[in-house]
């Protein structure tokens, strides 16, 4: 039982890193970024190639991976997300289809681009420490890399969370999420807020990709499963709710482990989708989300 909890919590940390960014983007733009898994993939590739091909020390290679993720986030925001809010009225009814198609298209584009450039091969990154090392956590034997990676991930997650909760720009992000027009009137530059949000979420996803790349090697489809799971997490926790997405991430991480151990290992990746469909049917607003008025 302890083993399930610890393993689940480790995966939960990485889901939380992805879900936090997704939730931030949903908060300010009210869209789901279907290309979120590709930020993860970019991080994984950067880290894996730097550590394997160029022999960079693994702790140092996390930083360029994060930078690549941030850059990808900024570029995507600048090139594709602007119409969602700059021509707000005109796009009012179109934004859902625009957002779904553009981010879905971007996801396919990046996957196939990676396939074109790197080929369909797996490149696994080097561990933070040699992957064979083991350590004891609460009576469970785990690979030291996993433990270190999840601690590093959790501290970055915490830092990002505190940044959003307590700094000026973080407050600006919350303001825009609550009321775009109100925030604009109060003098908040929503363009910059949106850039910041995409930067943060790209960076978090890429770091998650980098830290997981020794376990789940970099490949064109590397981002697909983490991404869909983080979608599930965001829906489970409540769209746009940051604490909700973190709680949801740990919950899903543990639920999956329970499912894999007690129900079926083959279908371990399918439980997340069942959770999604059940959530949408039973409590569409998620654990901590709110319903919005439509009329």
């Amino acid at each position, binding site marked *: 039982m302890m083993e399930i909890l610890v393993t689940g919590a480790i995966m939960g940390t990485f889901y939380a890193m992805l879900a936090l960014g997704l939730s931030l983007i949903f908060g300010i733009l009210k869209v789901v970024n279907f290309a979120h898994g590709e930020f993860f993939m970019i991080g994984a590739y950067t880290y894996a190639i730097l550590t394997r091909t160029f022999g960079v020390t693994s702790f140092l290679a996390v930083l360029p991976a994060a930078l690549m993720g941030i850059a990808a986030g900024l570029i995507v925001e600048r090139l594709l997300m602007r119409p969602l809010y700059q021509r707000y009225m*005109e796009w009012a*009814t179109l934004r859902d289809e625009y957002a779904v198609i553009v981010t879905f298209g971007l996801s396919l584009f990046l996957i196939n681009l990676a396939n074109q450039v790197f080929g369909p091969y797996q490149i696994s990154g080097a561990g933070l420490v040699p992957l064979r090392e083991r350590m004891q956590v609460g009576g469970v034997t785990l690979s030291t890399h996993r433990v270190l990676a999840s601690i590093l991930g959790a501290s970055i997650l915490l830092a990002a969370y505190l940044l959003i909760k307590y700094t000026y720009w973080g407050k600006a992000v919350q303001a825009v999420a609550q009321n775009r027009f109100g925030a604009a009137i109060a003098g908040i530059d929503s363009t910059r807020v949106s850039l910041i949000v995409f930067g943060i979420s790209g960076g978090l996803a890429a770091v998650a990709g980098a830290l997981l790349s020794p376990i789940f090697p970099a490949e064109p489809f590397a981002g697909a499963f983490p991404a869909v799971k983080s979608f599930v997490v965001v829906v489970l926790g409540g769209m746009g709710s940051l604490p909700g997405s973190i709680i949801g991430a740990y919950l899903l991480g543990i639920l999956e482990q329970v499912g894999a151990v007690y129900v079926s290992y083959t279908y371990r990746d399918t439980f997340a989708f069942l959770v999604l469909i059940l959530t949408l049917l039973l409590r569409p607003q998620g654990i901590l989300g709110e319903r919005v008025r*439509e*009329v």
Partner: protein
Amino acid sequence: MEVPLLWVQNISKRFGGLQALSGVSFKLEEGELVGLIGPNASGKTTLLNVINGYHTPDSGWIRLRGERINGLSPFQIARKGVARMFQITHIFPRMSVLENMLTVGYAIGRIPAKSLVHRAHEILDQLSLRDWIYEPAASLSGGQRKLLEFGACFMAAPRLALLDEPFAGVHPELKAVMERFIQSYHAEGGTVFIVSHDIPALVSICPRLIALHAGVLLADGPTEQVIRDEAVLESYLGSYTPSEV
């Protein structure tokens, strides 16, 4: 006694900690033209949403010609002849103006399908939208969209038209067009229920007014009497400024 067209009895609605409506009751007779006034957040739009079926009331019931309609879904209520004009215009931007009108006509089905196109033309003529009938509704100006929404409301010959702020942000000329339309519809025996901040407009066209304040029905009666009612004056008209709209 004849059954009233709309009979709202003891309707309450709560959103979280906010009591939006508490125990609202009134009746609308066939062929009446009634205005609903009240300050912001007094529950006017909520009341319309409850009548339309977008919200279910916590208590009370609503009857249309004696038939209970609360609990039905919005489209069923619309088909019983309750048309709604929204405060924020809800037109179908990527359909042409004519298609916008036809959708309502077909969906509600109170008018023979053959005469729908004809009726749409008549209404659009009166609202001076004739030149735009084949244009996508997205290409209309803000005021014209409001007119289209207004026209679509009357497209299916509703038994009861619920207009939410029809005059807000509309050019005086267009406002006059709308007022004329409402009055001629009323003259032909139609029932119209208007929610508006525009007291002068309501006073000039509605023989009867209902006043809401904080979800409570303050006054209900002939216009002259309601605008002189002390409670109404205190809660609303006293602080009313024309620029509020």
